[in-house]
């Protein structure tokens, strides 16, 4: 509902500006001694809120197996085409041979990444996560392309709820169709 604000004419004291200026000075004087709110960055770090989307990283499961199976869904979904995966086979004698594939090379170009989180969203293996890492720098364009070992170094190990491939192998060995 519209209403009209009464504009009272300024009093003499207000027209001299002085009481207002003195009031302002009082306020700024208080601020002069109030605690400072600046976060002095390199020494103090901000607390990262849950759900923060930092640098995309690759993770391993608690057994140390790399979770990525190089399905390349993230590569396809990535809007700025920052991800490039070269799929590779897992050797037949490895304990996780039933996974069949693992990335031979996995590059994320951080100059292109827009931190949208679609790769994490789309990953069927829960292998790629946007974690807490927010500070990123390099001396050349090449420095800012995260290769596979760097991605695992940043990502580390996250807890796993499913151990999907272990269950699959157990089901296969037991002759069950489904785990």
């Amino acid at each position, binding site marked *: 509902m519209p209403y009209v604000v009464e504009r009272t004419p300024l009093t003499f004291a207000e027209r001299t500006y002085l009481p207002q*200026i003195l009031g*302002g*000075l009082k*306020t*700024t004087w208080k*601020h002069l001694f*109030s605690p*400072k*709110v*600046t976060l002095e960055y390199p020494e103090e770090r901000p607390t990262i809120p849950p759900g923060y989307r930092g640098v995309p990283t690759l993770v391993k499961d608690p057994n140390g197996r790399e979770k990525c199976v190089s399905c390349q869904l993230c590569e396809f979904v990535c809007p700025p085409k920052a991800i490039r995966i070269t799929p590779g086979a897992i050797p037949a004698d490895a304990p996780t041979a039933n996974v069949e594939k693992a990335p031979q090379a996995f590059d994320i170009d951080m100059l292109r990444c827009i931190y949208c989180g679609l790769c994490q969203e789309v990953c069927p293996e829960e292998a790629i996560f946007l974690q807490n890492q927010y500070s990123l720098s390099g001396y050349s364009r090449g420095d800012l392309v995260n290769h596979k070992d760097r991605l695992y170094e940043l990502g580390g190990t996250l807890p796993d709820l499913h151990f999907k491939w272990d269950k699959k192998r157990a089901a296969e060995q037991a002759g069950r169709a489904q785990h």
Partner: protein
Amino acid sequence: MVEFWTSLPLFVQMLIKGLAVIGVIFPIAGASSMAERKVAAWIQNRPGPNRAIPFWFRWVPVIGPFLQRLGIFHLMSDGLKMLFKEDPLPGHVNKVYFILAPIVAVTLAFTTVAVVPFGAYLNRGGQVVPLMLANVDVGILAVFAVASLGVYALILAGWSANSKYPFLGSIRASAQLISYELSLTISVLPVFLWINIPGGDGTLSLARVVEFQSRAGFWGGLWFVFLMPVSALVFLVALFAETNRLPFDMAEGEPDLVGGFHTEYGAFKWALFFVAEYSHMLVGSAVFTLLFLGGWNPLPWISLAQFAGWLGLEGSPILVGTISIVIFLGKVLGVIFLFMWVRWTVPRFRYDQIMKLGWSGLLPLVIGNLIVYALAIALIQK
């Protein structure tokens, strides 16, 4: 020591005095710019610049980090940066005037320093002798005259830059400076009416004003800020306008004029403008202190001579001189702090508001004030 000084040729004496002015004002101006940044930061709940430290100073245990937090070393790095960065000379400027403008600004600003007394000592007869570089009889008039020429630095800078923002800045600044000069000059007249008692020789000396604020008795020891509050207020407001400080910084006006008159300037020439601005502030604060805040007297009703007597220092002129300079500088720095405090409190006036305030606010007020005080002084001193 005095004999050695007077034995030097006049030219050498002048040279040493001039170098002393440069050697004192440049660091104080730099420190003021640093203080400005720190005060701004503190008022805005920030710590302010606190990073730079020379590597060889890092090992000093307590003082090193303290000075680093205080931002002292930013001052040096800023000064060096101004010296060593490229000094641009745009192609479209009038080169002679463009280079002349900062030189004019800084020369005039330093010239005013010479005639301001900055301390006093007691001679053998127990009399207070003011310390100043050039003992010109006309005192305040010399300050006003030289300071009034400062407008040419702005005009030259704005006109020679041959670009519209500097031009608008200098047009506004010159109109503003001329308008507020009137109020500034008239506001000090009651002070000089009061100190030129009948029978004395007429004087405009600033040292005499301080002498009158350090006499005995209730009215004698009262600083003129209490005796003539309206004069002091108008003088202070006009001083803000004359030194182009917020809320009157029409010359710069960053939001609407990029940088005002110094838009086209950079590096050391730009730094010279700032040194000039800060030394204007310094001289303005010094004159305000001398006229209204009792100069080198420590407190109202306590003159320097009394103070020195309590400390038992009548016999040592150098110690008394040092104390007086410290007291005086303390007050001046207090006034400079007020400048900064107001800057980060009050928003900028609009141009028409500035003109209205100057011509139809301060000027009638100060003329009325002059008439009232002239009548009162005529009655009292009859």
